[in-house]
């Protein structure tokens, strides 16, 4: 009796989870996919290979790649400082890290425009340049690596480092051979999420980049412009490409992250 109940409980749980996932994500994603091939594969192909579409995809991917590399390094550094250093105001800084998550991205864009725009109080005007894309994406993806690395660093066995020191390793060697390998899975996982986020970012780009086709128009903004100019197939086609890129990246990063953890099995 209880066994039968247990099984039906499992089935119920799985059913609810799958239904929820379908309504919220899978079915809408399938709808985009269908829309993108509505006019046949030829239409899909010509939609994603227009010069403007290709340029926007290229801009998005290159900017995302740069941003992920930079934030992997600086995110790890920030996590290190937040975990290992003591300084006044540390708790406030720690809470600030999540701000890019909490802030509506359009507000992030506006903030950046005010500080790094034509009326910049520090005289740095990056508005409508490619650097502004990188800047906006750096801002919105900042928390990912920090928040992925922080808990791992907190849990890291300090005695491992002391053991390495007593065996003759200097600070740099301890970091490179002991600390870093243990952080790598978390860095990769955080970087994967940051990349997926960067590829899809819209709100923070819209104001500061100026959306100049072939120069500063990111893929997400391109999609928006296609919807506005009544080209739903073109919008859906580029969306599908972004979707696939994000999926593939998450899978690759997941695989690397798991591989780096294989010694724990």
């Amino acid at each position, binding site marked *: 009796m209880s066994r039968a109940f247990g099984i039906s409980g499992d089935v119920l749980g799985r059913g609810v989870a799958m239904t929820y996932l379908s309504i919220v994500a899978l079915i809408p994603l399938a709808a985009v996919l269908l829309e993108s091939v509505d006019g046949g594969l030829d239409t899909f192909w010509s939609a994603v290979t227009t010069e403007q579409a290709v340029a926007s995809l290229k801009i998005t991917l290159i900017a995302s790649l740069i941003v992920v590399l930079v934030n992997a390094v600086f995110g790890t550094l920030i996590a290190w400082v937040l975990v290992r250093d003591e300084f006044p105001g540390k708790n406030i800084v720690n809470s600030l890290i999540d701000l890019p998550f909490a802030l509506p991205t359009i507000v992030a864009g506006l903030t950046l425009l005010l500080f790094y725009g034509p009326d910049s109080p520090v005289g740095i005007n990056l508005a409508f340049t490619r650097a502004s894309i990188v800047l906006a994406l750096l801002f919105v993806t900042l928390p990912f690596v920090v928040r992925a690395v922080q808990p791992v660093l907190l849990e890291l066995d300090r005695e*491992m480092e002391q*053991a390495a020191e007593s*065996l003759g390793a200097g600070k740099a060697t301890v970091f490179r051979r002991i600390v870093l390998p243990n952080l790598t899975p978390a860095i990769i996982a955080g970087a994967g999420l940051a990349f997926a986020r960067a590829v899809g970012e819209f709100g923070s780009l819209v104001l500061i980049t100026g959306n100049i086709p072939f120069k500063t128009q990111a893929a997400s903004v391109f999609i928006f412009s296609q919807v506005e100019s009544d080209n739903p197939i073109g919008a859906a086609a580029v969306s599908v490409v972004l979707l696939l890129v994000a999926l593939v990246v998450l899978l690759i990063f997941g695989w690397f992250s798991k591989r780096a953890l294989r010694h724990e099995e």
Partner: protein
Amino acid sequence: MSIVVESVSKRFGDFVALNDVSLNVRDGSLTALLGPSGGGKSTLLRVIAGLEQPDSGRVLIAGEDATAKPPQRRDVGFVFQHYAAFKHMTVAKNVAFGLSIRKRGKEEIEARVDELLKLVHLDGFAHRYPSQLSGGQRQRMALARALAVQPRVLLLDEPFGALDATVRKELRAWLRRLHDEVQVTTVFVTHDQEEAMEVAEQIVVLNHGDIEQVGTPRDLYEKPSNEFVMRFVGPVSELSGRWIRPHDVGILVEPTDGTSEAQIDRIVHLGFEVRVELSLGDGDSTWVQTTRTMVEELELAEGQIVWLRLEAEPVSV
């Protein structure tokens, strides 16, 4: 190499971990730092290793002042209670770590790792990861790792503290034999008096940041310098207001000169050893450690009236 600790003090905030501690450890000896937790024994070990800086005092290793040296340059092997295994490296890489830091050749490293894994009975485990080893195996790996660089001094912080009783007993005997083989000056921390007695040649008893006594296991047991040491290194019992070892009291069924009358409350059989708990005439209670043979010979029973006699000089404290 010898270790000399000169008037070392160390505080953590208001807590005095070491209070003007001085100690000599002879070259090639095997010494235990024994005491209750918070007594300062681990701090002393970490000061010797350079993992803690003393507030005052000096540490000399092989006659050289090492106080200002970082742990990297002290030539000490350190073994931690929780192994501190490099979990992302194989057993072989763990053991080879110190040698690769020293930029030794690949062949030399391989040969040395092989030799050490044999020494700690882990040959065949070279390509496993620490997570695939038992606690005892991890600790043996940590020992091999510490020994790989041929340290002048081997320091072990509660090395068997995280292991279960059987493995612990095994490793104790094994550490003793290992020390006879490699002859490196060894200091280990323990809160277990039996472990200290069984393994060490010299025991240092630490309490509240002070050294209470330094001596051989036998010295400590037979001539404890104070009540703390006496209570810490072995069982104690009280008879006529004096502290005695409970096996130094004889049970008689007839009174003679200098005996005290007592009634048996309880007889506890612990295998060969038997523990007899008694009430004395003045209402105090005491206990005597005796043997099964003796209990059978005297036909002792609970409730029986007997007479107790001191059979050895009480330990002078």
